[in-house]
């Protein structure tokens, strides 16, 4: 086994893992506030990428496209919660989860109508000249993905642990009734969580668009892998989600490189099954 190759597998795995991690964080945020799983999260990633690509075509400035994409999708997240989830008469977790599945299909369909079925390219944030690192190469965009994941992770942890709003949000998940008794507006917290996770998903989508291209059905697989990562990490911990994502990404990359490229997608779902059988609470138990 060549060392340079191994390093290359690691870099590829960590970049993909960071993408899964960003999606997993979206799951974790909503789970924190509502104890439901938002299966439309993958589509937020897609919407982010597609919106940014469209904005860039009209006004070719990366910061504008990035912020515009994130803002638009955040709005979509808020509207989704408001129009599809809030009016439900029987807000039990399973009903809401099924609605999010439907929402995901809806977003994908609308995206297909808006953007068609073609793939679109999006320019890299800082050029495409690869860096060389001990025989392996990585693109500046890989660093952007890894860097943003780290920043988002720290910011989220700080938000949930240190700020009043973050604590209130977690309170809603642990005990909604008690949270209401102490004067926390649960509705507002849920809305905030959807806004946050949609914006985060969009940022992830825009970040990966230069690497993966943007296409209307890119969200589904990323969403599922992110879900695996979130489950692996224990759903209620941001660190767990990121760790789960990175493990998943590296496992996939190593499986492709060392065993056979046919097993790549099987790895994620195999890990998911093993975790659900053996350690359903995930690697890091949340709620500490």
């Amino acid at each position, binding site marked *: 086994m*060549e060392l340079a*190759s191994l390093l*290359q*597998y690691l*870099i*590829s*795995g960590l*970049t*993909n893992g960071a993408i899964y991690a960003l999606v997993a964080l979206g799951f974790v945020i909503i789970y924190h506030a509502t104890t439901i799983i938002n299966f439309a999260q993958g589509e937020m990633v897609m919407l982010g990428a597609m919106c940014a690509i469209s904005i860039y075509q009209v006004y070719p400035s990366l910061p504008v496209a990035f912020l515009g994409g994130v803002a638009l999708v955040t709005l979509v997240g808020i509207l989704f919660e408001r129009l599809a989830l809030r009016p439900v008469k029987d807000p039990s977790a399973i009903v809401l989860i099924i609605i999010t599945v439907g929402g995901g299909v809806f977003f994908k369909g609308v995206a*297909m109508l808006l953007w068609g*079925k*073609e*793939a679109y*390219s999006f320019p890299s944030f800082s050029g*495409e000249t*690869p860096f*060389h690192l001990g025989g392996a*190469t*990585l*693109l500046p965009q890989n660093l952007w993905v890894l860097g943003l994941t780290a920043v988002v992770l720290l910011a989220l942890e700080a938000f949930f642990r240190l700020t009043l709003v973050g604590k209130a949000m977690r309170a809603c998940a642990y005990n909604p009734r008690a949270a209401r008794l102490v004067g926390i507006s649960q509705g507002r917290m849920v809305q905030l969580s959807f806004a946050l996770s949609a914006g985060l998903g969009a940022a992830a989508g825009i970040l*990966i668009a230069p*690497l*993966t*291209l943007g*296409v209307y*059905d*890119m969200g589904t*697989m990323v969403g599922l892998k992110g879900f695996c990562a979130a489950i692996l990490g224990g759903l209620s911990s941001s660190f767990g989600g990121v760790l789960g994502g990175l493990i998943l990404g590296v496992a996939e*990359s*190593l499986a*492709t*490189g060392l065993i*056979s*490229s*046919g097993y*790549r*997608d099987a790895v994620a779902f195999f890990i998911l099954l093993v975790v659900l059988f053996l350690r359903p609470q995930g690697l890091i138990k949340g709620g500490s």
Partner: protein
Amino acid sequence: MRSRAIAAILVFLLGVMLFTAGCAKGPGTEPYVVGGIFSITGPASYLGEPERNTMEMLVEAINAAGGIKGHPLKAVIYDDEGDVTKARLHAEKLITKDGAVAIIGPSITPASMTVLEITQKAQMPLISCAAAAGITMPVKDRFWTFKTAQTDQMAVERIYQYCKKNGISKVALITVSSAFGVAGKAQLLAQAPQYGMEIVGQEVFADKDTDMTPQLTKIRSLPAQAVICWGVGPAPALVAKNMKQLGFTIPLIQSHGAASQKFIELAGDAGDGIILPAGKLAVFAQLPDTDPQKAVCKEYADKYQAKFKGAPVSSFGGYAYDAMKMLTQALDQAGKDKAKIRTALEGVKNYVGVSGVFNMTPADHNGLTPAAFVMVKIEKGHFKLID
């Protein structure tokens, strides 16, 4: 209650009026119904959409010119969404309900294989627009089945001829795990000994994969002189990008699945230098004037772009173009009798089409040779004819 009854009667009367109006044309101008089954939506829509457009465009033009011996054409086109079961249902509908005299499509190989079972039994001429050689082979079980797309087999032959000519004998394969990639890989492996090619590595990727660096890293450590990638859609463009990132110095050869302007756009800078077999439509302007296909390709491209503004002309639409043209010719000779249409299709000789020069025989219901492909190289965002 009463107003609802009146409304129902009115709707009924309206229906009767429309129906009689439709029948009022008289017997001499009875339309020929031509069926179409394409993957207009779904993952293979890049095939089905131009095919549908092309068929509608041709039918419109034929009807505007007075139809076939006074008979107008009526196209009944269904969307199978890339779904085998739907394709099958549509084929049954075309045979039993719509009264089609022949069917064009489906767009993809799995759907074509299913549909041809039905059309064979119903003795219905079928002209498939899909690639696999198995659609018209073995010919004794494909009596009623024809196809217009070039086969993988021809693309592989062209690629290996090119490799041999340029001193490349060791290649690594990276193929998509869908039907297209599996069929292509089978051909690449089967024909390798004949051309003295050594396959030093075989990697696969899934249709929706977005990062192929692990597979390519593995290939990088092999003594390959070229990488052959077999896939369609965005994934082959990502293979090109990943190869550039990894600093590959050996050439990348793509399949005809990458022969579209969209591929060049997606691959960006990484597309430069890629070599691939393509239908002549992609480079028709560079063909020598002596090439008989030049004029046909130009006519199709001009008409298509005039009608569907901004839509790039694709070789996939070309498959439907050739199918419809040959069918029109057959209808002109044979009228609406299906057996005669079939015989006329089998007798097509020297039809110069967009996808090649067709010479059908009872033993060959595709009628093309590897010469239907040219080798092209991507240079500064354009296809350049090299062989």
